[in-house]
């Protein structure tokens, strides 16, 4: 954690130089440093989850045993799911980029509770360590969903993972509380609610979900733990309990959790699509209200995970309609992004390439989501690779593309250096195509009837599995290139300057990298963000002073 830094374009040291030494990082309360620390740990988690993803793809090259046995496979997909969902995707964009940017984007010096912010980081690290220790030591084989009664009867030691995810949940809640309070109380003069940058709106919506849904997950995990320790019986039919209660409570959290993963990504896209179209958002209020809508309607759709689990037909129908409603908000965003590009001045940069990939892949991910929310179609697709492909389109095709877009868009802001642009665009194209090659065959596998979480499969499914594995290797190669050139750029990239993209986003009014307290003087924001019709009106007052 000692990158060499470009000279900041303004006066005074940047947040990277304000203090030196590892200790100053570990005890920092600077939201930017905490964001960077989160980013570092998250990338490690992504690497771990990705390695296991590749291992799974290799195992599925042939029917029967390829490189690992069935138990090893069951454990491997559990590691992949647990690490990617709980330790990477859910915290990813909010904790790394949200922490770094949220105060900058509303003109604040820091988040509302800086110490709580650092506590959130350490809770996350503690939870991650417990979870990883649990999955490796205990060899947990339940999948990331911990469905009862399997999770209560399996011989593997599930407890440490349950506790680890519980602790990570605490970290999520603290970050959520912090963000909501920050947005409410620390907006700079001039930043009214309808002038809040769209990424901040997305973080705000995400935080509401995090705060309201995560406690439910925490309690459910504790009940599963109790079931294992004391045979509580609440989810155990042989003691009069109801295994479906777990599914209801679990999805009450975990469906909104999908929006925890994808809403911040949508916020990133709303920002970048404006920045690289040099245009105001086509409809600011549509994006804002659809964000708020997703945050609330997302809580009412959990039952669509349970169409074939013995839920009443009436319940299934109701949840189906509610799921259609929540899909509309995504559709509205897609049209608005396209409208923003219309008659803009498009600059095809690395982040923008990811943006284009995001919009296209999110469309297919969303539509396949609508498809599985259709009750009769779900009779066929439920728990098959169609669903696997669907949620990877959302989580990788959308969330991860947005993560990469954010990484490339704000990289110069975070470390003050640029990366090789041509390399970036080429790799982005490679990653998008690698992604399609990996997951398009999985849709077809689902059609063909391949259920998920299968270590072994009938031979008829093999050709599509081979295609998918080939795509996955392309995808993995793409990530490798990104890691190499970004790592290189940390030291050797050319200095970025204050605003390399010529963006009108609030965060670019500050230096790159920003000074310790974000702005040299209290900023004033008379115009909305991304007001390209009136460039340069928002400034840091007395910047030159």
């Amino acid at each position: 954690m000692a990158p060499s830094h470009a000279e900041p374009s303004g006066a005074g040291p940047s947040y990277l130089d304000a203090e030196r030494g590892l200790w100053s990082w570990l005890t920092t309360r600077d939201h930017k440093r905490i964001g960077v620390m989160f980013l570092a740990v998250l990338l490690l988690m992504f690497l771990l989850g990705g390695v296991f993803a590749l291992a799974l793809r290799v195992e599925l090259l042939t029917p029967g045993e390829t490189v690992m046995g069935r138990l090893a496979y069951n454990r491997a997909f559990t590691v992949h799911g647990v690490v990617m969902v709980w330790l990477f995707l859910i915290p990813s964009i909010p904790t790394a980029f949200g922490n770094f940017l949220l105060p900058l984007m509303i003109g604040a010096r820091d988040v509302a509770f800086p110490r709580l912010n650092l506590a959130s980081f350490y809770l996350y690290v503690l939870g991650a360590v417990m979870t990883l220790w649990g999955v490796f030591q205990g060899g947990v084989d339940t999948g990331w969903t911990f469905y009862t009664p399997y999770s209560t009867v399996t011989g593997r030691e599930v407890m440490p993972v349950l506790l680890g995810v519980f602790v990570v949940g605490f970290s999520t809640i603290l970050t959520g509380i912090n963000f909501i309070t920050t947005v409410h109380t620390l907006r700079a003069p001039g930043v009214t609610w309808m002038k809040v940058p769209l990424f901040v709106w997305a973080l705000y919506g995400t935080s509401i979900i995090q705060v309201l849904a995560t406690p439910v997950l925490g309690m459910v995990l504790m009940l599963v733990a109790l079931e294992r320790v004391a045979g509580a019986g609440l989810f155990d039919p042989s003691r009069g309990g109801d295994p479906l209660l777990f599914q209801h409570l679990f999805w009450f959290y975990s469906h909104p959790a999908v929006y925890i993963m994808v809403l911040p990504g949508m916020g990133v896209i709303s920002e970048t699509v404006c920045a690289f179209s040099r245009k105001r958002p086509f409809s600011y209020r549509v994006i804002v209200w659809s964000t708020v809508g997703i945050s609330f309607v997302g809580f009412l759709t959990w039952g669509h995970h349970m169409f074939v689990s013995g839920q009443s037909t009436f319940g299934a129908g109701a949840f189906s309609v509610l799921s259609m409603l929540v899909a509309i908000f995504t559709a509205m965003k897609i049209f608005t992004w396209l409208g923003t590009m219309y008659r803009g001045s498009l600059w095809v940069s690395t982040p923008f390439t990811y943006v284009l990939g995001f919009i296209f892949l999110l469309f297919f991910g969303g539509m396949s989501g609508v498809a599985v929310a259709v009750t009769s179609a779900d009779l066929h697709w439920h728990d098959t690779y169609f669903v696997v492909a669907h949620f990877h389109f959302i989580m990788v095709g959308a969330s991860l593309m947005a993560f990469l877009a954010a990484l490339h868009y704000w990289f110069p802001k975070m470390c003050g250096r640029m990366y090789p642009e041509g390399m970036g665009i080429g790799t982005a194209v490679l990653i998008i195509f690698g992604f399609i090659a990996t997951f398009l065959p999985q849709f077809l596998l689902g059609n063909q009837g391949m259920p998920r979480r299968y270590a072994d499969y009938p031979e008829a499914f093999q050709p599509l599995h081979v295609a998918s594995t080939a795509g996955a290797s392309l995808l993995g190669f793409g990530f490798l290139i990104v890691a190499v050139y970004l790592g290189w750029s940390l030291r050797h990239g050319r200095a970025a300057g204050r605003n390399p993209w010529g963006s009108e986003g609030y965060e670019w009014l500050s230096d790159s990298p920003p000074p310790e307290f974000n702005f040299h003087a209290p900023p004033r924001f008379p115009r909305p963000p991304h007001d390209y019709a009136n460039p340069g009106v928002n400034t840091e007052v007395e910047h030159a002073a």
Partner: protein
Amino acid sequence: MRREASPRPVEPRALHFGDEASRQDAAHLGMWIFLATEVLLFSVLFTAYALYRLTYPGVFQQAPAHMDVFLGTLNTFVLVVSSILVALAVDAIRNGRDFAAAALLALSVLLGIAFLFIKAAEYTKHVHDGALPGAWYAYEAFALPGANLYFTLYWVMTGVHAVHVLVGVGVLVTLALRTLAGEFGARFHTPVELGGMYWHLVDVIWLFLWPLLYLT
């Protein structure tokens, strides 16, 4: 705050709110959101209670007969009184009477501890009866199907609540000591208010547990 070497005078980070009033607002808002998460935490247990009450209506109707309604009601009384004392303590500190505030906080701590002792007495009785949660349930006087679930819920709900009381007692002790040390006064007393809010929430949750588990 710790950075004398900065090239320009830097305001302490805590002052990034601009003034004390908005800083208090932020603290209160944060606390309210936290209380919302607590409500959702318990909502899981209330949901489970509702489901099993619908599934085993007879058991849940007969169960209060096996509870110690007197001790439960006494505990309600204890907790409500301590909540009132905390409210009075907040009032006292707002008016600058910090010794009175500390005394009131100390009293409510005592009541909180009394609550835990009474609860422990109840638990002892249940253990003696064999009315233990889950697999250990062996209460022969109440062996209907579903009775084990009632007692599992009873233990989990009151147990989680008792943990909250324990945390609350710790918070109140800290606050009382810091008030005695003169850290809070009429000008600055946000932590006392926040601690009070938490204690009231613990009280309110009990006001839902008490009728559900002892009275109906």
